[in-house]
């Protein structure tokens, strides 16, 4: 169970890292078509990975809240805690 949480979270982290790296590259190369396509591809992948994670394990961002009777944003674990 925990392993699955870790795996799904890692998938989001990998996509987000690629997006941050590509974002910073695009800042100084804003017309690089290959980099733009690369960003688009992983942005799509990120959306899927984040949806899969948040449906099972709760929000990564406040916008992930989907109703329900508890503000599960406050639920452990928080990122700095060894999970």
């Amino acid at each position, binding site marked *: 169970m925990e392993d699955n949480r870790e795996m799904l*979270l*890692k998938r*989001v*982290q990998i996509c*987000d*890292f690629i997006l*941050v*790296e590509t*974002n*910073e*590259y695009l*800042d*100084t*190369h*804003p017309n690089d078509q290959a980099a733009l396509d690369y960003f688009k591809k992983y942005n799509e992948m990120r959306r899927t990975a984040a949806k899969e994670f948040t449906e099972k394990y709760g*929000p*990564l*961002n*406040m916008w992930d809240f989907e109703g329900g009777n508890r503000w599960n*944003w406050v639920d452990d674990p*928080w*990122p*700095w805690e*060894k*999970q």
Partner: protein
Amino acid sequence: MWSYSKKLQYPVKIERPNPAMAKVIISQFGGPHGELGAATRYLSQRYSMPYGEVKGVLTDIGTEELGHMEMVSAIVYQLTRNLTPDEIKKSGFDVYFADHTTGLYPQAASGSAFSAETLASTGDVIADLTEDLAAEQKARLTYDNLLRLVDDPDVRDPLKFLRARELVHFQRFGESLRIAQDHLDAKNFYAFNPAFDMPKK
């Protein structure tokens, strides 16, 4: 505006606490080449930056540095869990513990509190970007020194990730300086400061 993502940029999972390591690694939180200074430097400098590409670089790298501050803090936090007073005394962590227990406080390894005097925001495009290039190298060499002191692979792994990011940021700031210089007088980069002097029509 910023929003929080409830995850680290890169995993930090440290099995064994080690307060002696925490005592030196905390420098990359609040020390002279640390992540708090890095974020503050770039996010302050961007207001006097005239070029969109470089406004983007300062904003996005500054934002990433906030995530690195969180990673360094997580490393220190995990290295100082479940300590006994005896372990604290033996490790030399007692000098920190006296004031901060095991809370996170931005300071250098040598014990001095975080100071904005470790960074510059000059309002001069070339001076700021040159400062940023040096800052990335100083952060890199600090991670190199920490990697010389740390043998636990659980701790080395995130430190290596952070070190690699300094190299990438150095590259982006190099490109930023080139972009800025392309906007300047090619015969004299210092003929005017585009963040202050009115450009000649």
